[in-house]
């Protein structure tokens, strides 16, 4: 009964989406205010029905209703409750409903927090989002319905893949989808602006906070995926340049370019065409990612079970949405003006260079991911493009970006003579050089580490210097807190995010350059060492979990004789899927992680154990979180919240002035 209600609710959501898009968009051209006014309530309606449907699906999973096909494929009665909920998005159909739910959430949020937008604009924005909803809802209803019944019902489910039975599964997909789907808001604003033929800086001001929040979620989503892979997969890797990872990285790179470009368009009215194109590209890459994961054109550990028919549907949807928006762009964009002028050396031009670099980086990832497909389609053979390619090509491309991150804030708007900027930074450059030399002396053979230290120092020192200078410009006697508050949050957002990048860079280079590992055969009582840490294999026991049995090893770790940690890696075998899984033990620290994973047991009772010492790996995670926090700060800048209030005040006072005496 409940699944059928859920199914019906999805159909009602489709009706809402139709009402949300066709009438308001038409009404925005025919100036029919009744039709335009339908947008907001329809968005609310869609949100209600999609949420209800999702609730029905969760219910089916929680009560173990194995007559529903997706429950039978992805869940099991021995699965703990929180994983039964997460299993809702463990398969293609359920995750698609999650996508749609996220879209409904964003649409609803836009309908709520946009009182200051003119009616035509909001009608078009919500209308475009509604069109996207229609596409996905139809896709769900006609090819991938999570509420499909399995008759006769299965006795029990096939269980959620053991690798997915983890906290990461609860957090990573929702966060990632919030990011992917969030770019649809910037996209819709861009399309609305093109439809209306009006591209002014107001459009950028409206788009920017939405884009920042979406970007923040995507940052967190990608971080969560990496963090999860690190502890889940058992050998300490955290990025594999896998097709699906790349599919999330590309929109992130373009999204980063977009938030910088929006800053320029908002402040100076320049780059309008370019920013609109970026908004279209960012969301297009989100959609492309959806296609790549679900169509089977690329091999990936993340890919869902594939069906060429579904792939064809998404491809047609892609062609319509992206083709349509790029056609609209080709038609309307040439008519839009150029905006404020600026000189060759200015923040505008520096940000344009940032855009070129980030777009080239995104294009590189795109090329590497899809090249095997391109060659195969042209019958030119099958190749593989893996980490060696990306590390060789992508990393050098990012170096100029890292260089510019530190420089950018010092470059003034409109015109900033190169000599001035150079003068400002010369001491920092010197300090960076000193750091580099010290790093060279400590980590000599690894050029990677030296570069990492140098760039981190460069970014952090320059950013700190900029902050100091800004904080200094206040009347003497002002407290530190007041000085901090006198700078807008968008400033702090920039500072924090840039600093986060520096920290991230240090983490990555230190880990890759200085991590050490040891593969040993150990029996109980044996010791081994990595770095200055000694690991003693104290105990081996069999334990049981709710749906698995495991061999758990207990290791005592000492450093220079004093005890540091007790670590318990496990080798689990899940009762349903009978897949062995390594549950690594990690002792996390500010300056290093210790990592133990159990391999296979040997005949003589010893186990293959891999012990790793990973310096500064937490700085990777910390850096990502700091970057995301920077995005949050920038999005919560007062001017996005003040403007609405201020405009309301202005209107009120204007009405009061013009009221008949």
């Amino acid at each position, binding site marked *: 009964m409940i699944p059928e209600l859920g199914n019906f609710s999805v159909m009602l959501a489709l009706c809402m989406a139709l009402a949300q898009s066709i009438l308001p968009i038409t009404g925005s051209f025919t100036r029919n205010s009744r039709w335009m006014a339908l947008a907001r309530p329809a968005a609310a309606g869609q949100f209600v029905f999609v949420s209800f449907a999702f609730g029905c699906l969760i219910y089916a999973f929680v009560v173990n209703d194995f007559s529903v096909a997706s429950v039978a494929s992805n869940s099991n009665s021995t699965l703990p409750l929180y994983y039964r909920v997460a299993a809702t998005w463990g398969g293609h159909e359920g995750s698609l409903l999650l996508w749609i739910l996220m879209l409904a959430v964003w649409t609803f949020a836009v309908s709520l927090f946009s009182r200051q937008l003119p009616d035509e604009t909001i009608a078009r924005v919500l209308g475009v989002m509604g069109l996207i909803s229609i596409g996905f809802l139809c896709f769900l209803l006609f090819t991938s319905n999570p509420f499909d019944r399995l008759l006769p019902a299965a006795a029990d489910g096939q269980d959620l893949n053991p690798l997915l039975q983890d906290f990461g599964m609860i957090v990573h997909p929702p966060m990632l989808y919030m990011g992917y789907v969030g770019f649809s808001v910037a996209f819709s604003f861009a399309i609305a602006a093109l439809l209306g033929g009006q591209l002014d800086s107001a459009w950028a001001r409206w788009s920017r906070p939405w884009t920042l929040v979406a970007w923040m979620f995507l940052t967190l989503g990608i971080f969560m995926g990496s963090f999860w892979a690190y502890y889940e997969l058992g050998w300490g890797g955290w990025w594999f340049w896998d097709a699906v990872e790349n599919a999330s990285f590309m929109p992130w790179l373009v999204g980063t370019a977009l938030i910088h470009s929006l800053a320029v368009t908002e402040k100076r009215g320049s780059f309008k065409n370019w920013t609109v194109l970026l908004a279209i590209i960012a969301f297009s890459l989100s959609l492309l990612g959806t296609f790549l994961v679900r169509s089977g054109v690329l091999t990936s550990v993340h890919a869902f079970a594939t069906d060429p028919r579904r792939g064809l549907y998404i491809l047609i949807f892609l062609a319509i949405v992206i083709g349509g928006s790029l056609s609209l762009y080709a038609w309307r964009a040439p008519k839009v003006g150029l905006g404020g002028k600026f000189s*060759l050396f200015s923040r505008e*031009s520096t940000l344009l260079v940032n855009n070129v670099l980030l777009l080239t980086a995104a294009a590189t990832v795109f090329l590497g991911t899809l090249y095997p497909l391109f060659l195969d389609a042209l019958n030119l053979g099958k190749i593989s493009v893996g980490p060696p390619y990306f590390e060789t090509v992508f990393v050098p491309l990012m170096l100029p970006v890292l260089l510019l991150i530190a420089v950018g804030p010092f470059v003034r708007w409109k015109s900033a003579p190169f000599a001035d900027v150079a003068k400002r930074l010369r001491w920092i450059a010197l300090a960076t050089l000193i750091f580099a030399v010290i790093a060279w002396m400590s980590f000599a053979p690894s050029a990677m580490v030296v570069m990492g230290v140098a760039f981190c120092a460069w970014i952090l020192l320059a950013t700190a210097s900029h902050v100091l200078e800004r904080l200094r410009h206040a009347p003497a006697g002002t407290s530190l807190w007041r000085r901090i508050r006198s700078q807008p949050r968008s400033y702090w957002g920039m500072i924090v995010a840039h600093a986060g990048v520096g920290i991230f860079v240090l983490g990555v280079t230190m880990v890759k350059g200085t991590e050490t590992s040891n593969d040993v055969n150990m029996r109980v*009582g044996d010791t081994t060492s990595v770095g200055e840490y000694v690991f003693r294999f104290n105990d081996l026991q069999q334990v049981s979990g709710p749906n698995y049995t495991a061999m758990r090893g207990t290791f005592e770790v000492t450093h220079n004789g004093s005890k540091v940690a007790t670590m318990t890696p496990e080798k689990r075998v899940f009762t349903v899927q009978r897949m062995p899984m390594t549950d690594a033990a990690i002792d996390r620290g500010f300056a290093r992680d210790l990592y133990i994973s159990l391999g296979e047991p040997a005949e003589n009772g010893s186990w293959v154990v891999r012990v790793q010492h990973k310096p500064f790996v937490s700085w990777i995670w910390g850096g990502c979180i700091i970057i995301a926090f920077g995005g949050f700060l920038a999005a919560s800048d007062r001017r996005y919240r003040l403007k609405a209030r201020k405009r309301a005040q202005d209107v009120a006072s204007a009405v009061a002035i013009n009221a008949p005496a």
Partner: protein
Amino acid sequence: MRKFAVILIASLATYCAFPAFADEATPVATDPVLEEHVKAITEELRCLVCQNQTIADAHADLAIDLRNQVREKVKQGMSDQAIKDYMVQRYGDFVLYRPPVKSTTWLLWFGPFLLLLGGLVILMLRLRSRTTPDEMISESDLQRAAALLRASPESTKE
């Protein structure tokens, strides 16, 4: 004195509780240097069975066989390139995670740098053409502007 005895006996007992042969664990690899070399090579080779792992990491039988083959060949003194050629001869370019540089992959290897160069050049050209100095406004235009401003009603300040 008694305290010392207790500690001594306790530590002896603890020592005896462990198997007599507990000691430093033996590395899985008999020759770590060789193993590093093998790892460096096999990390660039793709496992054809579980196609999303390197031959270094995969557990498939074929991967184990190929790892052993690589180890043998390194011991025999074969060069890295010769070993990779051996693999490509049997499995095609697909087995290399680092795509070979040949005419079909020039776009892949050189495209990004060309794109970067091209992008920067186009950017420079467009910026140059836009940085014409602000045109001098003629006096009559200035007066016209002033007159228009005086004539229009008060607009709400931003």
